[in-house]
């Protein structure tokens, strides 16, 4: 039996105004009215740029979503991925009926509940118990449904002892657990989840994922939005990839994630110059720099991928020279600095290679600075932000999907004796 389509989006688009325009004062509308009555163009209405946050907007309006079409079948777990500003949240807001599309329509079968933000409607003065009822009602549960699930919710959140205490006295962890517990015990046909995994400790994350899996296995549909590729990979059968408000890809999760990684990761893996315009001075010039991932497929650099970094440069004057290599994270922390042995280099072209093994770097975006150093002390020439590459996390086997802490993630031997 083929499964029923429970969500069908047809040409969904959403137009947003940008900036200060239309902040809601009468004067703007009066200006607009004045312009129009004088037969001039409406000063605020220039519709239509696509939503690219890396560029300055040229219009006061932007399409947060443009012509999105898709179908979700019953019991499916759908992941939605994309960079910030790709339209993920807007799509969720439309699906959860917080806002309406500018054009197009979404048709839904069954009840939708969303966890756009857990704990909505929690009131600090109310007790845990009162908030369970309050929050449950806001999320669309009837009193009867909450009564039926009450004990389970309290158990799940692990707040039995504090159920009659105002939640303002809760620790933030308890607060979040309680909030999620209510939401997790909704019994909607379609559940929308947004980044809840960002909260809570590892044990709680595990509970949450288990619960989501449960919900899915009961034939209910889940839509899960996350930046976290691991979580998406392990939870979702199919995935939707949004970019600048447009649907880039929709299909089997691992294929879509691969496409996402190869498209979105802003790698600058290779740069080269002609001798005439090579950066440098009268001592050295850099001809090329290149990062070569030691993998078969694609340019994606994973945690486990070993990479070679090669440089070609020209020495114009004979001198004692070494190359110094610095690796930075985008937040500006230097991860390490390695140098070649200082040697007497005669004028001519040289080649150098740095090998970075797999399982050394953490998942992050790195940039490279290269220094030419004379007599191991004087910098004769340096290039900053020479190359940029992103190391992507692999699918983890453990039931934990948080950001791995640390500047590096070496694969050291650590075991019980």
């Amino acid at each position, binding site marked *: 039996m083929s499964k029923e389509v429970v969500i069908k989006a047809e040409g969904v688009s959403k137009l947003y*105004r940008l900036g200060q325009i239309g902040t809601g004062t009468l004067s703007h509308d009066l200006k607009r009215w004045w312009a129009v009555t004088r037969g001039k163009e409406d000063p605020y209405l220039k519709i239509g740029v696509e939503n690219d946050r890396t560029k300055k907007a040229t219009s006061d309006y932007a399409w947060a979503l443009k012509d999105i079409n898709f179908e979700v079948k019953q019991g499916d777990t759908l992941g939605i991925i994309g960079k910030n500003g790709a339209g993920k949240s807007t799509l969720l807001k439309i699906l959860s009926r917080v806002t309406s599309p500018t054009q197009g*329509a*979404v048709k839904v079968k069954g009840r939708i509940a*969303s966890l756009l933000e857990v704990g909505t409607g929690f*009131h600090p*003065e109310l007790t845990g118990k009162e908030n369970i009822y*309050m929050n449950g*009602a806001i999320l*669309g549960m009837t009193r009867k449904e909450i009564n039926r699930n009450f004990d389970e919710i309290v158990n799940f959140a692990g707040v039995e002892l504090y159920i009659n205490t*105002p939640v303002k006295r809760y620790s933030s962890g308890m607060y979040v657990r309680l909030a999620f517990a209510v939401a997790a015990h909704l019994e909607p046909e379609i559940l929308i989840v947004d980044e809840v995994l960002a909260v809570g400790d590892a044990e709680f994350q595990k509970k949450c994922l288990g619960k989501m899996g449960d919900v899915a296995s009961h034939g209910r549909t889940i839509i899960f939005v996350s930046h976290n590729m691991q979580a998406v990979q392990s939870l979702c059968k199919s995935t939707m990839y949004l970019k600048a408000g447009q649907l880039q890809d929709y299909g089997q999760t691992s294929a879509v994630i691969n496409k996402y990684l190869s498209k979105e990761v802003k790698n600058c893996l290779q740069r080269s110059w002609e001798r005439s315009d090579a950066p440098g001075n009268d001592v050295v010039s850099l001809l090329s720099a290149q990062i070569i991932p030691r993998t078969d497929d694609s340019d994606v650099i994973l945690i486990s991928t070993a990479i070679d970094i090669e440089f070609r440069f020209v020495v114009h004057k004979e001198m004692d020279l070494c190359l110094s290599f610095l690796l930075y994270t985008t937040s500006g922390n230097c991860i390490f600095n390695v140098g070649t042995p200082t040697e007497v280099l005669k004028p001519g072209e040289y080649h150098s290679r740095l090998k970075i093994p797999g399982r050394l770097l953490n998942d992050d975006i790195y940039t490279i600075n290269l220094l030419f150093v004379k007599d191991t002390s004087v910098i004769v020439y340096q290039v900053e932000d020479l190359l940029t590459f992103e190391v992507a996390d692999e699918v983890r086997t453990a039931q934990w999907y948080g950001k791995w802490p640390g500047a590096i993630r070496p694969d050291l031997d650590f075991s019980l004796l």
Partner: protein
Amino acid sequence: MIEETLGNDADNWDILITSRRSYFDFNIRELWRYRDLLMMFVKKDIITVYKQTILGPIWFVVQPILTTLMFVVVFGNIANIGTDGVPQILFYLGSITMWNYFSETLNITSKTFTDNASIFGKVYFPRLILPLSKVVSGLMKFLIQFALFLIVWLYYLLIKKSISPNVYIMLIPVLLAAMAAISLGFGLFITSVTTKYRDLAFLVSFGVQLLMYATPVIYPLSRIHHHRIWLWLNPLTSLFETFKYAFFGSGTFSLPWLLYSLAFTAVLLTLGIVVFNKVEKRFIDTA
């Protein structure tokens, strides 16, 4: 943000989310399904007001008592406006109790969108639930204050024997419903308009104060001798006069004007709901 049951068409969709919305797709069935939420909002309003206070709900009656005393001094004795022979305390307490319900409900419902932007931005429920819950929680507060009024009223009725109420007392539920509907209708209209023009929000609390003087709250209608028609045109006038007539036997009861008020109320409430429904789906984008 429409929810409508699409009936038995081929696909049988439960919810249709589009930008289109007609003026009158006002979904009572959905509202009914969320009645538990309405009661939760009411409960929250009541509970949170007196949490961490010693006197608790007693605070609900302190305010009308103090205001009444103030009015007795200022309007009754200094300005010497007169109360149609009704004991001053009773006259002012009754008026204030009624007026407070109207003005507080109006004030709070007229801020529905701005006060609840964060909730509205996260979860869907029929937006009308929130202002409705304010009407109901205001009613709870009103009932406590009204009980105070009844005690004072019984004192003057049974012990002082200085007032002569009549059978029109039976109209009190109608009066209350009309007050609730006017304040709700007005509030819905104002909150809808002020999502775009915040300017108007400043006018509201100020305007409500002015409106009190355009309504026979602190003075009896009988004190106005010229151009009384202008006061009658205020839909609140006949409600207040009927109230006073019923409880004190002193006001002016006019059936045509009462019917006018009720008709006005019905139109205002309908208009308020229509505009509110129109605005609610776009509101979150401009908040």
